[in-house]
Every structure is written in structure tokens, then in C-alpha cells.
């Protein structure tokens, strides 16, 4: 972990940072996802920790089985603006996702504005995250040059119920929970 540590040069002293700009963004993306999972009472485990990459691989732990997650955190998009956001995908990502036997979701956390000191604002009513996450299921999506994330798929605690139903379906349980019993 220490190998990825870079010290930003232009912040005011004393400099307390141990994460680079990319690393800080990636951690923020994971922390945001964790907070949504926590709200829904669902566990989350990172499967690889590298402080200086933008993509984080993780597992959402539902009662029946895990779903897989790829989280990206970016400042390149606006929260309100456009119908979709497209992210380039490596071809080896697609082969990994298509081979997965449980659902894989791509989560894009949009930071808007992309200004690190303003990511979290402490307003009188509470804590305001200047961020929104959008998602798309990718294990069943055909390979293309980019991952198209619809902006109408906002990640909330309710989304996790939808994902849990997808996981159940992999094990023969249809939506509504009535099917599959023999």
C-alpha cells in the first residue's frame, strides 16, 4: 500500500495526505458505495485494494450470494446533464464479466464539481456529498467500446433490492420469491 503513496506538492503545509489524486477519488467512490450498502444493511467487501487505481473490484454480500461490482469515480461528468455517461472498458474486463456466474454491476460515481475540497460539504442540516452514483449491469451487456451508463439508473438503497432479486434469479428464485420450490 505504501508503494502507491505520493505526496501532493501544492497543498498548504502541513501536508497530511498519503493518497494521490486518483487514489483519493477511488477511495471516495468506495466509501460512497459502502455508505449506500450500509444504509440497506448489506455487506461490501473489496477484492483488491490498490490505492492508486480508479477502478475498484468488490463484492456486495446479499443473503443468498454475492454480486460483483466495479466502481469508478470520475469528475468528468455532470450529475444533471445528458441521458447517459459512457466509460471506456478494457476488452479483458468484458471477458471477465461475461464469465461471471453472478450479476456484475458497473457503478459510476460522478463528482460534481470535481474539486476535492468541495466533495463533502457540512451544511447546517447535515452532510452534503456533491456526488451521485449511476449503475448498469454489465455481465449480460454485449461488448462495445464503452460502457453506457443510463443516468436514470441512480444508485440508492432501493437499487440493492433490485440487485438481490437478480442474484436470486441466478439460483432459480423468480421475482416475488414464490418460484423455484420443488
Amino acid at each position, binding site marked *: 500500500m505504501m508503494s502507491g503513496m505520493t505526496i501532493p506538492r501544492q497543498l498548504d503545509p502541513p501536508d497530511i495526505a498519503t493518497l494521490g489524486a486518483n487514489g483519493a477519488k477511488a477511495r471516495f467512490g468506495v466509501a460512497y458505495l459502502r455508505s449506500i450498502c450500509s444504509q440497506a444493511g448489506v455487506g461490501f467487501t473489496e477484492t483488491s485494494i490498490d490505492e492508486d487505481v480508479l477502478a475498484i473490484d468488490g463484492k456486495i454480500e446479499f443473503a443468498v450470494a454475492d454480486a460483483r461490482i466495479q466502481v469508478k469515480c470520475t469528475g468528468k461528468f455532470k450529475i444533471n446533464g445528458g441521458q447517459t455517461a459512457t466509460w471506456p472498458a478494457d476488452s479483458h474486463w468484458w471477458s471477465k464479466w461475461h464469465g461471471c*456466474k*453472478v450479476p456484475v454491476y458497473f457503478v459510476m460515481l460522478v463528482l460534481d464539481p470535481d474539486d476535492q475540497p468541495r466533495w463533502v460539504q457540512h451544511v447546517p442540516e447535515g452532510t452534503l456529498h456533491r456526488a451521485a452514483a449511476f449503475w448498469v449491469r454489465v455481465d449480460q451487456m454485449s461488448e462495445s467500446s464503452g460502457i453506457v451508463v443510463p443516468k436514470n439508473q441512480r444508485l440508492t438503497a432501493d437499487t440493492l433490492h433490485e440487485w438481490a432479486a437478480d442474484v*436470486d434469479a*441466478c*439460483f432459480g428464485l423468480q421475482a416475488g420469491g414464490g418460484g423455484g*420450490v420443488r
Partner: protein
Amino acid sequence: MPALACRLGVVAVFGEQAIPTVNELRSYMRFNGWNEQSPGPTGALWTRNGKRIGVPSEPDNELIAGVVKRLAFAEQRDLADVVTSVKYLLFDVTHLRADSDYRYADAIPLETGAKIVNSARTMLRATATTARWERAHIGSNYSKYGDDVVAQALMGHTQKGSYVIPVLMPLPEPEGADLHQPALDLDHEQVEFHRSPSEPFERRVIRTFAQSMQAVKELVVDPAREPRADDMHELVYRGVSREFCYALAGILKQRSIGEFEASVDWAQAVPAPATMPRSVTIDSEAESLVSKAADKLRQQKVDPSRVFSGTIVQLRHESPDDPFGEIAISTVRQGHASEILVRLRMPLYQKAWDWHYQGRAVLVEGTVRRVPGKPLRVDEPFRCHPVDEMFLA
């Protein structure tokens, strides 16, 4: 889902223990009351008491690790314990521990290690033969059937601490559910009939091994005197042979060994003897006594034709007025698997129920009557008691 400690556990546990297979998981879950539902593309949902776990149909380490984690959560048990239970569901595991005074970390002399492994194999081989046909002295007459069973035994990784070698004996999967049903008549005085499955021979071998260790300890080592002829008979009835004692003495003779212990973890899937000591420890100072017992067994003539042992597979009491009940013992007698009916007076018959519930094998001495076309039977046993109770005249 459980917290970080549990999550870290997955890595540590699976780092040290091989991940279970899908089939091992399915057997374990079936045995523990989980119900498999009709499958989907990835696998099937297994349910129990409102809990649901998705079990993959194909090998997938990530998904299997997820199943184990969920089982540990459902059972409120440690992950490592669950992995062990899953992997050893159908294995009797005998831990052979040599308490060494050799103070090099995690090591014993190669000579000693080799001696333990060789001698343990000989002890098990001798036991597999006497489990077929009790005798004081085997010589070269090892049972082919017994040898075939010993050939299936595995040696696990040595465990840290004292030097521990696990010996794994695979058992056949029990057929169907346990037929054990609660008795309607708690006093067992009324009419009743009960059957349960017989003990697999592989289990009989390991049980005989454990009871042989116990018999040597209680009849040879603990009395701390020259073994007597009566004791020799009792040893043989429990499966001890000259070869067993000789191999055991060979381990105790090793200079670097302070004591030798055998403890058995019985396979969960096959009902285990509840009262047999789980562990028997013999001090290396007992080597000369065990050697003497070996010498005596060479000279001893023991006729085991009136004595047999095994688990109770049937209990019958057909008329409330009948002062006798009848049990059936599943045994291997002179190389042949057989069932022998034993007639018992009611007080003893009622005790037999307790022994049966506890999974205890019993030892019977008496004249075995052979009537053509009918089961073997003993009408007036001279004695009938659990084999783990030593009968000291």
C-alpha cells in the same frame, strides 16, 4: 453479514485449508437439514429455517467461499470450524500426537517421524484385521478385506503444536435418513420394534482402534503390573493383538517421545460412540508393560467364539407381559458380517436402549445358537455390556 473479522477469516482460513468441493458442501448441507430447491443458471437455492443460500452447481472458489461464509453465519460458528466440518463430514479423523521433548521448533527427528507413521499404519492394519476376526496373534494372516480398507486411509497435513499426524478414514455415505425414531414407550416395557442402520466396517475399524487404545491404557498401563491372563482375554475381545501392542511399544520406545496420544473426531454423518473416551494418552514409560503384553499375546490362546461385539441395530419387545426383550447386534464374526439376536431380561434391555441412544457398541459373551434358516442367537448371555466398560473379574 458478519463483520470484518469474519471477512478476514475467509482469507486466512482458505489460505491454510483447501476449499471444499461443491459435492462436499452439498452433502454437508443435506445432512444438516438444508433443502435444495430447483436450480437456476448458476446453481440452486438451499433453504433452512427461513435462511437461503445459493450454492453453485459448478466449481467456483469465489462462490464456494461465499457459501461457507454464509453457513458459518447461519450456524453462528467459526469459519475454520465449518470448513473442517464440511471437509470431514464423511471422515473419521484420528489425531496421533507425539509429545516430543525434542525442543527444535515444529520438528521431531526424522527417525521418530518415520517410526510413528510406520507404527501407526501397522496398528491400524492390525485393527482392521481384528475388527474382522478377533485374535491374539496375527502373524502373516492379515485380512485381505481389512487391508483394502486400510489402503483407503489418508494422512492429513501434520498440525502444529506437539507433533500431530491426522489419519483420515473415509466412510461410505449413509443410505437414506437415520431410521432412528423416538420410542413411543419411554419405559420400553410395552410393545415396540425399532431398527437402525448397521455400522459401516470402516467405522468399525476406527472404533476398534480407539477401543484398543483405551483397553491397553486401562488393562495394561494403568494397573502398572505384569499383565494377567484374564486381561489378555479382555484385550483380545476388544480388538487388541500382539501386532498392535508391538507397534505401539515401538512408538513409545523412541527416545524423543514423552507420550503418545490418539484422539478421534468421529465423522458427523455417521452416529458416533458418545461415551468412548475421545482421547487416550499413553506415557512412554509404559513401553515395557506394553511390550510384555505383546509377548504374552504371542503365547496366549484366546478363543473368541463365545464373545462378539458390535452396535445395536434392532430392539424388540413384543408383549407387555414378556419379561425379556431382544436386541440384535451387528457384528463381524470370524470374517463374516452377521447379526446376532441376544435375549435380555427387561432391566438390561432397558439399559440397552440407553447404550443404543449413546451409539455405544456392546460386548456379548455367551453360547451362540445356530439353527438352520434362522438368525444366530444368544438366549442366555453370560454378560452384555458396553465395550468401552472394561469387565474386570
